[in-house]
């Protein structure tokens, strides 16, 4: 009997994941040391113990707000400065050394500096901002530079207003670059934000919980919190990218709906 190729493709991915979870559990059984490696069963139990506690939700909310705020601020500033740098090449040259510096300095150095400047409370905001800003800035410039000059000529001849020009010509060119930059930046913001929290240990944060796992050699808790970070960052990433991806079509549809109905 011939197998339905569609069915196989649906089941392939979960089966691969299950295979690696099995390998992980097998390794944990073989090592048989809960400090060096816990299996998925123990990590899952640790997570189930965490979820009903108020401290768990407080830590997740605290880190989520701080890291998301840093990301969103960097996104807004990266867009604004990227747009300005595209319009004014002198500004791009002027900012170039700062961008090179931001890209090359290790996050750990920034964390120490941020602890001195802003303390541990807003550390994750600051670090997420510094990591995300260069990515959004660079992708904004690249996206705007990819705009089709022939469409810009068309807009010039038809005297298309600036706002429409942005919505119809610049935005479609910019969005693929922005989406690609955000995919990387969203993951990086969580990785660097939590790493900063582990160093700065702000109260009631995921970073503090990871630090406690290290102090008590509680590998099960470490795995459970790591799973939480992955889930929360993935949810934020999907929601943000869906919002960004929907922008272009929504803009066009809104434009058509805005028209007066008499002519």
């Amino acid at each position: 009997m011939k197998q339905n190729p569609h069915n196989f493709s649906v089941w392939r991915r979960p089966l691969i994941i299950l295979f690696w979870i099995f390998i992980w559990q097998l390794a944990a059984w073989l090592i048989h040391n809960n400090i060096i490696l816990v299996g998925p069963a123990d990590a899952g139990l640790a997570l189930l113990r965490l979820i009903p506690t108020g401290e768990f939700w407080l830590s997740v909310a605290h880190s989520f707000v701080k890291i998301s705020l840093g990301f969103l601020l960097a996104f807004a500033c990266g867009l604004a400065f990227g747009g300005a740098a595209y319009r004014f090449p002198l500004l791009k040259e002027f900012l170039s050394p700062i961008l090179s510096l931001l890209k090359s300095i290790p996050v750990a150095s920034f964390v120490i500096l941020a602890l001195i400047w802003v303390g541990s409370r807003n550390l994750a905001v600051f670090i997420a901002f510094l990591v995300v800003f260069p990515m959004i800035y660079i992708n904004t410039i690249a996206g705007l530079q990819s705009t089709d000059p022939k469409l810009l000529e068309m807009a010039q001849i038809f005297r298309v207003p600036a706002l429409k020009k942005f919505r119809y010509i610049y935005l479609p060119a910019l969005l693929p670059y922005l989406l690609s930059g955000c995919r990387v930046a969203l993951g990086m913001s969580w990785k660097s934000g939590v790493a900063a929290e582990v160093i700065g240990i702000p109260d009631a944060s995921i970073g503090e919980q990871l630090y406690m796992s290290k102090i008590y050699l509680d590998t099960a808790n470490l795995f459970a919190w790591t799973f939480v970070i992955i889930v929360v960052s993935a949810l934020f990433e999907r929601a943000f990218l869906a919002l960004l991806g929907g922008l272009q079509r929504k803009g066009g549809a809104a434009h058509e709906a805005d028209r007066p109905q008499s002519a």
Partner: protein
Amino acid sequence: MKLTVLSLRKSFGDLQVLSGIDLELESGRVYCLMGPSGSGKTTLIRVLMGLETADCGDIIWENTVSALPATDTATSDSLSSDSVASDSAASLPAANGKAGKGNNPTGISPRFAAVFQEDRLCEAFTPVENVLLVTGRSLSAARVRAELSRLLPEESLSRPVSTLSGGMKRRTAICRALLAPYDVLFMDEPFTGLDEDTRQTVISYILEKNAGRMLLISTHQEEDVASLEAEVIRLSSR
């Protein structure tokens, strides 16, 4: 409105594309710009629209004169205007008075619309949205849809332009230009990719919508001249 072009010259590096072009065009008439490939049809249209700056010569819209560097009129493209048929001059919508660029930097320039050699449509948007981009608040979406449906199948109007055939894109570009507010319309080989029936439908639509305004069309087809009841402006090869 009247356009007078005097001793217009344009070259790209060592390549002389236009040499000593003289023209007189009036509103209410259709002009077919003809000549072999490489004779400078597109360049002339781009210069007239202000997308390229001429090396020297004058482009005069109404009373507006722009003086360019001293003109060498010794050589000239062989340029003739064979009047096939012509309408009498008709009344013209007022130009909106914005200053133009290119060879007419200080004067009042008319409002242009164009069908470029390429379609130059926003691919992610529907034909209706592409037209609304250039029409301003003067036309409703319903009206634009009604106009587009005269040239395109109804079902294609809500699809992104990227999913349309080459001919459909071309008709969208033509409709966009004709529905935009303009005084002078330039069309650079607008019938490329259209079959004979569609071509005739499009020509009828162009003549209906362009009424009374100046239209300059570059084409290779002699039969277009008759269909458009146009005067011929012939550029010779270099």
